[in-house]
């Protein structure tokens, strides 16, 4: 035990699959934080918080909701990874991310022109 280099092919595949825990954490954090700033959810939180005058309750409620949706997202992602062909899904999610990127950059440019 503790000698994973007995099967170099498996090890190679493993090391490519599993980026360090921390770098994935940072990637998730920065991507989602940037995407969420100024998003409709944040605007909803802001409005409810201002209307009710109880920011703490709104913060707790919104946080619980967001934790639930990201838990669901992670579980759906695990299910997909285990049940669908990996290479195909990587292509599909690459295309989804590219489309989201193009959409956001276009929206940004429209906003820039309107400013």
């Amino acid at each position: 035990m503790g000698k994973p280099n007995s099967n170099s092919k498996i090890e190679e595949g493993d090391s490519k699959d599993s980026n360090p825990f921390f770098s994935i954490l940072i990637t998730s954090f920065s991507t989602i934080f940037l995407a969420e700033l100024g998003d409709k959810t944040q605007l909803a939180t802001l409005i409810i918080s201002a209307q009710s005058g109880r920011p703490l309750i709104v913060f707790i409620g919104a946080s619980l909701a967001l934790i639930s949706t990201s838990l669901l997202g992670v579980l759906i992602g695990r299910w997909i990874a285990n049940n669908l062909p990996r290479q195909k899904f990587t292509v599909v999610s690459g295309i989804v991310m590219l489309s989201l990127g193009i959409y956001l950059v276009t929206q940004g440019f429209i906003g820039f022109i309107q400013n």
Partner: protein
Amino acid sequence: MILTLLFTTFVTVFLAEMGDKTQLTTITLSSTTNKPLAVFIGSSLALISATLLGALAGGSIANLIPAFLLKLLSGIVFLIIGINLLLQSKTEASNDSF
């Protein structure tokens, strides 16, 4: 009153966030990496921080950084992730053929 507000906020945000680009990102990240816990912690922390800014700092972020700049920035991040995934799928495909 407090419970009603808590419940209202929860339902509103939960429904608004289901199937949103944030959840799509979480699904993508957790299915293409092998670290679901890292993705869950990272995205939860990001969402809580963004909410904290929304609930406490009010609109000051939107006043400080214009919305189009935020959209451009996050759009570029999404483009980078997309290109990365496509490149990754290419190497996966060439590995499979051996």
